[in-house]
């Protein structure tokens, strides 16, 4: 095929495809035409409306603030552990992590005046031994 013939075929192809596209545009149904009109009016109204306050350069200023607040809250929650506090009389709220630290203090304490952890464990074993023997003794005849 010569160059001229190729160009001519290209032109014919372009014309035909353009005509087909134009036909398809004309055959857009009325429902869609109506939606397009509504979309246009909506866009023009929205563009004409004054921008909401609290926005800077099109970005809502509340979003970063809310994000930072959420991040801070999450950080606090992770730092102090789960928020499963219990009310304890006059002491107000005492959370589990504080209790755990107290328990650890008691067990790890090497103060000679305090109760030794091994003694506590021995006491427990004696108690369970006693319960076991009591259970095995039958009822008095």
């Amino acid at each position: 095929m010569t160059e001229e013939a190729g160009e001519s075929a290209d032109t014919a192809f372009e014309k035909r495809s353009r005509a087909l596209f134009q036909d398809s545009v004309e055959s857009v149904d009325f429902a869609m035409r109506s939606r397009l009109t509504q979309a246009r009016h909506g866009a023009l109204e929205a563009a004409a409306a004054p921008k909401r306050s609290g926005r800077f350069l099109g970005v809502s200023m509340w979003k970063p603030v809310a994000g930072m607040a959420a991040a801070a809250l999450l950080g606090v929650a992770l730092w102090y552990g789960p928020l499963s506090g219990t009310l304890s009389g006059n002491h107000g709220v005492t959370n589990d992590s504080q209790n755990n630290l107290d328990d650890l203090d008691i067990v790890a304490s090497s103060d000679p005046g305090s109760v030794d952890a091994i003694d506590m464990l021995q006491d427990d074993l004696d108690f369970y031994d006693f319960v076991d023997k009591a259970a095995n003794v039958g009822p008095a005849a």
Partner: protein
Amino acid sequence: MPRFDTLQPAWMVWDVPAPARGGAVLEHTQDLNQFLAEIERRAFRMAQVALRDPDDALDVVQDAMLKLARSYGTRPSSEWRPLFYRILENGIRDLQRRRTVRKKFMVWLPGAKDDPDNEALDPLDTVADGGPDAPELLMQDQAMQRLESSMRALPARQREAFMLRNFEGLDVAETAKAMGCSEGSVKTHYSRAVHSLREQLGEVW
């Protein structure tokens, strides 16, 4: 001391700030409305060709209208067309990217492997339209469907160049502005698009 030489004659007498340009704004809005009314159906069809889904196409067109009106409405009206199509093509590309990401994500979900994008063919789509019986209409419809199908197979830039140049009638410079590339690139994309389409459709057209 007021500077009368800079004031318009109509309110020079009162020596007050110029009145709000309500009339100009209204006229400008009317011009924009007229411009959008002229191109909205073609823009919708172009978006539909690229996205297949009419609702997605409508969303993208509306978004482009809003962005044009908000950000570029005050520009000279001669600039609106390439700007509008640039926004539209960006919107189409964004949506296609989101679809791709969604597809990749959906593959990991159970039961979604066979049809990740709910794009299973509706059996009704394959049934011949029972509306107008005119063979000419039917042939045109089929020819357009083939053209659309072939255009979807093109690389995105070639498809954009072909639609903007051939369907929308933008010249090379306007197309380059709309596509955000050089005029040389537009010519190359367009030429390749025409040859690819002709190769694909040559036998049936």
